[in-house]
């Protein structure tokens, strides 16, 4: 079985995000970029599945500019076998991403696609679900554990009330939650090996997908600065303020 791992390049989680003055987006010039942490978990899971002998090949896919090669190389250094960059300068939105991935999956025919549950930049939490719908594949989002069974997968999901375990058939789309695993550190000899692994570049046109955005972003703004708190003298004053000022009780 092949596993496909779509990964996204985002602003590193340690960086303080700055909104552009004109509200058109956030500053990315000279900003450290990394693989989306949930995608890293997806790569790790795929590598573990392969190490356990349950998959033969791992293909990492990224969609975006040339620069995305860096996260593909990271995935290769972590243990992916080859990489595909679908190169475009358009900021591709979830539905178009799902369509590009569907086209890639039809070419590569993997038995499993593992995605991050969301990217920490847009926080959309849509691509995996859209992809499974487009393909008509089983779906298990927010996985915190994946087990192979005779008939497919048993996936534990992190849901509001606690943990839910579901059985799904392959082929399937699984999206990762934070507790699925702890991604390994990249080793130097593997960075060297990653250089020699194949990285193919293709375009959305070649895959026959129109990536023109369907959603217009009107404005991006900083969250309002948090106002200073007030000290209350006693419980009575607190209850009074909650009832009459904040009007929450």
């Amino acid at each position, binding site marked *: 079985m092949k596993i496909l791992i779509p990964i996204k390049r985002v602003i590193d989680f340690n960086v303080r995000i700055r909104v552009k003055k004109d509200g058109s987006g956030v500053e990315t010039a000279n900003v450290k970029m990394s693989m989306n942490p949930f995608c890293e978990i997806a790569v790790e899971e795929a590598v573990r599945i392969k190490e356990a002998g349950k998959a033969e090949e791992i293909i990492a896919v990224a969609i975006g500019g040339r620069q995305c090669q860096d996260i593909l*190389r990271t995935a290769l250094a972590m243990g992916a076998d080859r990489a595909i960059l679908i190169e475009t300068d358009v900021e591709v939105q979830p539905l178009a991403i799902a369509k590009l991935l569907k086209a890639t999956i039809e070419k590569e025919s993997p038995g499993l696609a593992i995605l991050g549950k969301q990217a920490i930049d847009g926080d959309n939490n849509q691509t995996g679900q859209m992809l499974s719908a487009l393909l008509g594949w089983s779906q298990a989002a927010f996985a915190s554990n994946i087990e192979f069974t005779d008939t497919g997968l048993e996936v534990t999901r992190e849901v509001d009330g606690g943990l839910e375990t579901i059985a799904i058939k392959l082929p399937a789309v699984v999206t990762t939650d934070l507790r699925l695993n702890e991604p390994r550190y990249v080793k130097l*000899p593997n960075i060297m090996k990653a250089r020699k692994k194949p990285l193919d570049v293709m375009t959305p046109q070649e895959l026959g997908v129109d990536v023109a955005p369907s959603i217009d972003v009107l404005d991006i703004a900083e969250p309002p600065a948090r106002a200073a708190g007030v000290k209350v003298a006693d419980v009575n004053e607190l209850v009074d303020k909650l009832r009459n000022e904040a009007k929450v009780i």
Partner: protein
Amino acid sequence: MDFDLTEEHLAIQDAVAKVCSDFDDEYWTEKDTKAEFPHEFHRAMAEGGWLGITMPEELGGSGLGVTEAALMMNAVAKGGGGAAAMSTLQINLFAPHPIVVLGTPEQKERMLAPLISGSEKTCFGVTEANAGLNTTAITTFAGRVDGGYVVNGSKLWTSTAQEADNILLLTRTTPLAECTKPTDGMTIFFTRLNREKIEVQRIPKMGRSAVDSNAIFIEDLFIPERDRIGDEGKGFYYLLHSLNPERIIVAAGAVGIAEDALRRASRYAQEREVFGRVIGQNQGIQHPLAENWCQIEAARMMMLKAADLYDSGKSCGAYANAAKFLGGRAAFDTATQAVLTHGGMGYAKEYQVERLLREAMLQRLTPVSEQLILSFIAEKELDLPRSY
């Protein structure tokens, strides 16, 4: 001209930073206070393959250049472990270079493979009490006997000799008085650190206490012929090859210490409120730190230039020395300013900057002093008379 690091360089820095992130301030404070070797850190770096970064690929290394080693060292020093973290690894980077270049296949396999995997460590004995920076004045002597040599003498400052399984040792094999040139008559060995014949005495020191430095006394140590590196009498020339890489790597580490100090100082300046505002709002606090930033970036550029010259086979002596000079100054000045920025708290171990200051001092002293660097530059770049 391209000032950008490559994708692979960034990958190296990122990957090293991740290993370092498992070793926090508490870890390094404890290693420093208890003067304990950071074995856990050494092991983690060995597991990641980092100890072999400059070593040949056929022995399990990665065969990369000074630039990559320097970027690794920069990330290591910057990660909070400062000079202690640097010195845990430094010996592995270029000290064994003569073995890489001149060793027989048998020697390379026997000597280098365990250093790369981290299963063995080595120390490096060059400096002697009575020679100082004038290395040709060393007197530790290896006399010819059947099947090898017998060595007598002493070395000073030999770092990691408490932990090392081996020693890379520079000796005289012809007394200075009998040599045509003072740089002749020296020989390098890589041999077991036989504690029955070598007494190792730890030197209590100002900082970087986690990694030991020692006075060692060698008495009638037999070294078999097969432990000699290259030809007899050419040891000093072999050593010269690794001097510039060592300076560049130390400069990269020094820049890392400076970056860590600056990061801590700016964070404190953003948080600490006195007179109703954060201290970082005062130019008296801002300007010195901004000046440190300039120093750091200048030192980094010089270091990368020197590394690039070396890796492309060009002469890099003045730049490697200048990088070491600027790096040491950046580390020391920034660490000093970081302590001052913290006020009284700068003197408390909790804030780490006093440790960085003690370790930054070392970056000005070794492996070559500022005076000797300036003498070298005056001679080679300014055509002034040689002064040493």
